[in-house]
């Protein structure tokens, strides 16, 4: 609940910021129509389409539209990760092997990153997999407010039209994405922690 409030506030804040920055990051309803004009329409992902089209200029253009929504989504989730990383690091830094590494005269940076962070990262990785679902949920709201024609807004539109087949399709796609990301996380987990083998 709290995070949603933060997100709405952030949205308002970013939009006003944007007005001030005037033009660098584009935000208008009709902007993306202009964007689409003359762009190859293969995947519907504008960044990828523009690259397939072989136009760097259009790619940069497409990336500019993504900047603000991505920032909003990322900032929203970063709170969870900052807190989790902090508490995990504090716990790991107290462990014996960290003291033992210091006692061997290793540099503080290799103690903190090579020993503490490497070990504290495992639960963070799990959280990344879980939070991916949150990210998709957040995308629905963010795309609606930023008028970005993404999957999230597509889903909302289709719900408004009670277009059940389309809703099913979008939901299944979201589900597959979440499952896939979590699979990747599990495989990475075994790679990072030698104690885990499948």
């Amino acid at each position, binding site marked *: 609940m709290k995070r949603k409030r933060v997100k709405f506030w952030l949205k308002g804040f970013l939009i006003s910021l944007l007005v001030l920055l005037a033009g660098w990051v584009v935000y208008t309803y009709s902007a993306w129509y202009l964007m689409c004009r003359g762009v190859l329409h293969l995947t519907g992902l504008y960044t990828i389409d523009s690259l397939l089209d072989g136009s760097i200029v259009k790619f940069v253009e497409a990336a500019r539209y993504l900047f603000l929504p991505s920032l909003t989504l990322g900032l929203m989730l970063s709170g969870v990760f900052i807190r989790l990383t902090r508490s995990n690091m504090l716990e790991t830094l107290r462990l*014996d*092997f960290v003291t033992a590494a*210091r*006692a*061997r*005269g*290793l540099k503080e940076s*290799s103690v903190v990153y090579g020993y503490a962070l490497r070990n504290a990262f495992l639960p963070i990785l799990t959280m990344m997999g879980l939070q991916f679902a949150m990210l998709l949920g957040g995308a629905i709201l963010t795309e609606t407010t930023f008028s970005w024609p993404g999957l999230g807004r597509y889903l909302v539109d289709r719900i408004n039209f009670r277009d059940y087949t389309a809703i099913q399709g979008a939901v299944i796609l979201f589900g597959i994405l979440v499952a896939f990301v979590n699979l990747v996380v599990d495989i990475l987990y075994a790679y990072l922690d*030698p104690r885990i083998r499948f």
Partner: protein
Amino acid sequence: MTVEYQTRRGDIRAVNNVSFTLEEGEMLGLVGESGSGKSTLGLSIIRLVPHPGVIVSGHLRIDGTDILNLSEKEMRGIRGKKVAFIFQDPMTSLSPVKKIGAHFVELIRTHEPNISEKEALKRAKTTLNDVGILPERINDYPHQFSGGMRQRIMIALAIALSPDLIIADEPTTALDVIVQAKILDLLKSLRDTYGMALILITHDLSIVLERCDKILVMYGGSFVEYADNKELHGNPIHPYTRGLLRSIPNIELAEQKLEAIQGSPPDLLSPPEGCHFWPRCSFAKKQCRMERPTIVEFGPGHLVRCFKEAERF
């Protein structure tokens, strides 16, 4: 050397004015009950007393240089290279996500940057062989070893750069009795081959009596008695040392009753006035409660902090 833990409830003097000297190749046993400040003293030698611990005063000379005056960077050059530390719990002293070999390579290349990774691995294998671990297992992870083997690996890490001093903080407390004896004998034989000095921290006086050249007894953060092995065994002065000696089982005197020392160690937040040991001492007199005894030299190299002794002269 004096070390304090500055906590919110007050300063805990974990090490109160303890001093000793150690010659090359000597083995010192540091004995005391749990909480007597042994680990704190050991860690202060490599300046790694955990927060909120502070070395309040003292000198610590290694080859004449006072390491308390060194910068943090210079200090890192000493840790692992000149003074190595072996911790109590081998199960948690190695990073679970790093191969054994990586621990060695990192250690060797931190202190000797121009050694190649290959060469460092080769050296690691020789060292592992010295402590009785198959060199082929260098690519295994810590969880693939038993506790005793991990402690051997920790010892190998300690001797890898042939330091002048190794501090072993209860290296065998987490292991069973047979492995315990093997590890301690390994330490002693490595000492004999490499000639480094060794500080063995333990709460078990019998371990120290069997192996060490000199013994330092601590109680409640304070120096109690310091002498070489024979002298301390044959002629203990301090009532606490005597109590410890009487509490060791002895096969020849099977009939003898084991005596425990009555009472419990002092609360270091508010230690008793006078001698820290008086509430448990059967010889305690009025003077012991009022003032703190000074360290007196009883015989050559035999130091005691007790009034009982001062009176004899």
